[in-house]
């Protein structure tokens, strides 16, 4: 289970948006069970996947995430009854949109991880980390962030440096 993650040229940054009742607890279980997984993931806790706004995913990519995970309760297990059902539709639509503007969906994963599925949490996080690592950095949004309108462009060494820092 434990991926050897030494000597990689590139360590992806993975943002995980999870619900507190299922997936956060599942990740806790992975901890109490002393399972091992790559340290690339940063967890942001929400009450429910229903609270997770597509803008957060977009923003995470813009702010440098190379991969994003959204995970919550299995259908029918939602602490709030229907939050994950609403989230499911929202993300079904949003991922199509991201795909359409050219975001490689291999960088974006949705999963159901229950409070009992510590092992699944490890699997999901490890799988996504390794997949994104093999894909290399998410260049698109980062490059875009550095771009200016031609009229406002000033080519400075700092900008050049920032560009080079992406990969």
């Amino acid at each position, binding site marked *: 289970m434990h991926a050897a993650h030494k000597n990689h040229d590139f360590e992806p940054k993975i943002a995980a948006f999870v619900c507190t009742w299922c997936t956060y607890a599942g990740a806790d279980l992975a901890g109490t069970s002393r399972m091992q997984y790559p340290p690339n993931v940063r967890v942001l806790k929400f009450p429910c996947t229903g609270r997770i706004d597509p803008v957060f995913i977009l923003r995470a990519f813009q702010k440098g995430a190379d991969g994003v995970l959204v995970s919550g309760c299995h259908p029918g297990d939602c602490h709030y009854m229907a939050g994950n059902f609403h989230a499911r539709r929202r993300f079904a639509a949003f991922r199509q949109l991201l795909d359409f503007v050219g975001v490689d969906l291999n960088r974006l994963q949705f999963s159901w991880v229950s409070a009992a599925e510590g092992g699944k949490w490890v699997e999901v996080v490890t799988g996504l980390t390794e997949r994104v690592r093999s894909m290399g950095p998410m260049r698109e949004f980062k490059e875009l962030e550095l771009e200016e*309108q031609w*009229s406002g462009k*000033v*080519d400075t060494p700092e900008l050049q440096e920032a560009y080079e820092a992406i990969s």
Partner: protein
Amino acid sequence: MQKTITEQNLRALIDLLVKKGTRVVGPRRAGSITLYEPLASGGELILGELPRRSAKEAFFPLCENILSFEKTTEGVKVADVDPSQFPETVIVGARPCDAAAPGILDAVFSWDYKDKFYLERRRKTTIIGLACTSCDDACFCTSVGLSPADPRGSDLFLTPLEGGGYACEAVTEKGEKLLAEFPQLFTDAEAAKALPQAEPAGEKLDLARIKSWLDGNFENPLWAEISERCAGCGACAFVCPACHCFDIVDEGGETKGCRRKSWDACGFGKFTNHASGHNPRDAQPKRYRNRIMHKFKYYDDKFGKTLCTGCGRCIRACPVGIDIAAVLEEISKK
């Protein structure tokens, strides 16, 4: 004797300037439209089309950084943008309505506060103007006192000639310098006949009369009549060569970011929104009134100039068909 240049040499001029490291901006194909953009070569220059946006962005960018900041343990580090890094620029093929705009805008950018961003770019820019031989029913430069062959604002002015090529008139020193720098591209020729200039349909307007009506009609039902249909977008202002409102925002992160200046428009509902939530221009007619007042009264009051070159872009761009030429005509009849 008159200097002339062939179209081929005009394109060659662009190539030479680009090679030299000068930024050359001219009408260029951008997707399905034409925009003033930096040209990579003379071949990219589009002649015979009015770009969708004006040339003002060469001096007054759509968006530019004015400073960057970074919070460190030692405090906040602020770095100003250094205007000396702005590139030397030549604008090629600016139509009279675009070439005339900076001359109008200089006043506001160098009045009490000297806007170094604008002024430095302006100083470093040479404008090669180009007379119009065709126009459409939105063009109304003649109505506001300009003409399709008006060299005002251009440093070098080109007039298309019958049988091809352009007559070149050096309007300013910058223009003469350009002629002198590339003598091989320009020929002295007997003046061939210039192509007939375009003839916009509108009659010349009595701008003084319009202004005097505006002076006394801050409140008038006309404003609502014209602009109830206004959707409140900024298309008119953003394509306008003379509109120059901007917003300043800080963007980026909490610890690191940029202060940016970008175009704004008085048509936006939030344009005059106060932090308190109060909005003095709380309805679209008040906002549209400001647009007309600013162009034909306030700017005149302050700088003695009209803030419109009659390019007609706002008429073409307006998604609800608000037609500034028609509005002016109506006011002039009042």
